[in-house]
């Protein structure tokens, strides 16, 4: 029965008060609706990806003195950098090149091999079944019976339009 007991009144009031003090509408109304800041608090990561090619940070974080020297040289005109220096600078910033990222692996051999193993196991089970489990098929499966059956099908002109009887040449007594 829906009696308004003291306990129920109390809990209803408590719910009202909580909503009045903490609901999102109240909180929004208490200040301007500008966003204070959009902070990305994640740690900078390095990754190699063709989809998102520019990671958060350089690959080599701590640079040796040799690397520092290169970096300084990089600030000048780039045509003064030799090919090896350019490659070294690339390897400071990135772990792999695009062609290294796209290198195929040998995983396919494992996959295909496993598939064949399972197919082989299945084949073994099927063969074992045929030898040890299945009963003898009915006598209508004997070669002689099947031949007589086919003969009868042809004599009865079964499926004469596009089926089996249409493939038999009745005048010559042979398949077309």
């Amino acid at each position, binding site marked *: 029965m829906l009696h308004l007991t003291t306990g129920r009144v109390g809990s209803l009031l408590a719910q009202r008060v909580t909503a009045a003090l903490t609901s999102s509408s109240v909180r929004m109304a208490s200040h301007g609706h500008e966003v204070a800041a959009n902070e990305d608090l994640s740690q900078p990561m390095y990754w190699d990806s063709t989809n998102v090619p520019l990671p958060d940070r350089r690959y080599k974080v701590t640079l040796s003195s040799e690397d520092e020297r290169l970096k300084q040289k990089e600030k000048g005109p780039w045509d003064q950098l030799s090919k090896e220096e350019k490659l070294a600078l690339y390897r400071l910033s990135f772990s792999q090149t695009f062609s290294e990222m796209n290198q195929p692996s040998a995983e396919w051999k494992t996959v295909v091999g496993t598939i064949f193993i399972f197919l082989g196991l299945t084949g073994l089970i099927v063969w074992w079944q045929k030898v040890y489990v299945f009963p003898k098929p009915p006598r209508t499966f004997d070669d002689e019976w099947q031949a007589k059956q086919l*003969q009868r099908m042809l004599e009865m002109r079964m*499926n004469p339009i596009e089926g089996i009887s249409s493939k038999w040449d009745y005048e010559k007594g042979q398949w077309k």
Partner: protein
Amino acid sequence: MAHPTQSGFQDAASPLMEELLHFHDHTLMVILMISTLVLYTIITMTLAKLTDMLVLDSQEIEVIWTILPAIVLTFIALPSLRILYLMDEVSDPHLTIKATGHQWYWSYEYSDYENLEFDAYMIPTQDLTPGQFRLLEADHRMVIPVESPIRALVSAEDVLHSWAHPRPGIKVDAIPGRLNQTTFMASHPGVFFGQCSEICGANHSFMPIAIEAVPLPHFENWTSLMIEDA
């Protein structure tokens, strides 16, 4: 009957079945086109070198791939409905035969002129002569005249059965207390085998139907012989 390893339909023995075969070819062609398109899309998407990271939605393509399938479906639905209504046409049958399903045999009554009734049991495998078809041969065949529209009234004596033969394209449920009607016509002479198509007990797989379509004089001979024997 089907030859071993046959996976397609058997040849049609009635005009209706011919229509169904053509419709099946048409529908399979539609399916083949759709499957090819999907396969091509899957392959190109899987093997593409570049990824567009910013694709979220596209209203245009959503409209296209909703409208286009609807159109394709009408191309399938309209022929289908045409055949459905074609099946219901009653074409002034020359003969009416009642086929009644029992556990586990069929009985046929030709009561138009004389009262001709007989039962058709399966010939057991051990009694077959070499060359006969296992599970399909019946001791009596339902003989009909070729190229004559036949009305078949199908019912059952005990439990549900179904009177089905693939070549004339017939499948009619046999329901106790109900008469289901179908009309069909055998386009050419021959023997058309069918099997009970509604589970009806232990020997459900062993109550076949054999329809033999013969020229009218042969049919009349047969009816006279059957009536004499009765």
